[in-house]
């Protein structure tokens, strides 16, 4: 019942993030679409000019820019916890006396987090898809799918970074503070010096978007995604070693 325990521990964070992301996307896109066809703003002067499909897809790109920030913050929060934190809480003696390996304990926590991260990526985009349909300006489902894929493929590395931080830092507030600090730091470094490897640009489609139609190319930046996921895997390996070597 380790999955059940992981669920109970992350339930509140997950559901809050899920609600926030879904409501935000729903309201944001709804507002953007409907505002273009109201009495005050005749369609011709709205956000989405009639016959200009590019405007619609430009809106999707903007949405992803907002989503990625919230999603990364959410998955970083989901990555907090684990047996190192349990030691400060006083329950590590119970968890570690169970007949399961520390690697398995970490594995279940990561597994639950990944599933939740995927759900947090899918839910808001499904909302966007539905709202766009209801507004009479349907978007291609493939585009929605591509945004989800970019988000998860490029962004999971931040979840794994949070897992690693939670294995090294014990404080209830110092651990998330450190993790958020890393997010900020990498954002700055990527933007200033490593523009070609900027994972934020990868996720928001900068490397695969057509500048006229604003459609994402189905030729995803696989190399970038692979690199990001590989770094993620390395972080998980590091976390496993840290947790196995630690004394409680």
């Amino acid at each position: 019942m380790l999955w059940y325990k992981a669920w109970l521990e992350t339930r509140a964070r997950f559901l809050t993030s899920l609600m926030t992301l879904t409501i935000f996307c729903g309201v944001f896109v709804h507002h953007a679409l409907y505002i273009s066809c109201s009495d005050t703003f005749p369609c011709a002067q709205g956000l989405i000019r009639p016959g200009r499909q590019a405007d619609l897809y430009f809106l999707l790109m903007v949405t992803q820019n907002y989503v990625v920030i919230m999603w990364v913050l959410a998955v970083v929060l989901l990555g907090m916890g684990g047996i190192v934190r349990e030691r400060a809480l006083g329950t590590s003696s119970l968890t570690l006396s169970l007949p399961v390996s520390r690697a398995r304990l970490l594995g279940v926590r990561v597994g639950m987090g990944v599933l939740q991260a995927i759900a947090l990526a899918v839910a808001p985009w499904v909302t966007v898809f539905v709202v766009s349909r209801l507004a009479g300006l349907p978007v291609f489902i493939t585009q929605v799918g591509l945004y989800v894929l970019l988000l998860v493929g490029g962004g999971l590395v931040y979840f794994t970074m949070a897992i690693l931080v939670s294995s090294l830092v014990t404080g209830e507030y110092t651990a998330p503070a450190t993790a958020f600090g890393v997010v900020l730091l990498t954002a700055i470094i990527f933007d200033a010096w490593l523009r070609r490897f900027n994972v934020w640009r990868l996720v928001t489609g900068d490397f695969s978007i057509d500048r006229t139609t604003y459609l994402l190319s189905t030729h995803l930046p696989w190399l970038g995604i692979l690199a990001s996921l590989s770094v993620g895997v390395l972080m998980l390996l590091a976390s496993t070693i840290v947790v196995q070597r630690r004394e409680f």
Partner: protein
Amino acid sequence: MMSDNVIVTQALSKSYGSAEAVRGLNLSVGQNRITAFLGRNGAGKSTTIKMLLGMVRPSAGSGTVLGKQITDAEENRELRRRVAYVAEDKPLYGYMTVEQTIRFARSFYRDWRADVEKKLLENYQLPLRRKVKMLSKGMRTKLALLLAFARRPELLILDEPSEGLDPVGVEHFLQALVGRSAEGVSVFFSSHQIAEVERVADQVCILEKGCLLVDASLDQLRQFYRRIDLVFSSTPPEREFRITGVERIQTTGRQMSVFASKNAEAVVERAHDLNAVSVEVVPVGLRDIFLETVKEN
């Protein structure tokens, strides 16, 4: 019958920097017995137990529990399946209800006893649907103990188990402990409650500053430890009494108190030879044995 030891350590040691928590510990805990582990705070009891269960890595030495090497991660996981452990702080997940906690623990162990679970739930009157963080300290202790008792492990390791229990709770706990022992479970528990240890333990190990000072059966301790109170007509000749078995001599005026771990008869004989005015032999309780052993070191 006593051939297999459930816990054996060889020169087990643990240092944290320059501080030595456990020094060259050679412990053997026998099968089918109740062994008590006594020691002051900071003597190294909890550290020893944590090493046995793979939570802390020994600095030196080795050990086996139920025949499995404690330093091998895989073997340690295997032995944890057959050992029930309750840590000193009675850890429980605050966000789970009593029912969820029991279901959670049960899912890991094939040796779960539903009948014992039911009986203890009734005895302890634990509210099934209440979250653990809302329980009183006494109820939390009872729940933590229930998780260990509702199983049939080969070895039960308890760290200060009755701390936080009211006298009725203590009686229930000791009865459950004795019941488990009768079923063939070996028990290894550390405690500060000397009175409880004196009632139920078969073997006593006293740990001080990381070293094992006493490892004897309680019956042996009862039979051989004695205090001999002597009165002399002049200054008591302390030097004459430093013989085998004598641990400590206290002299006040014309009175002398000899604390012996064995050989009390020789002390009495010597006292008579030296014309002691009064000779009284008094049995020593476990509390005094513990205090004298620890003080002297």
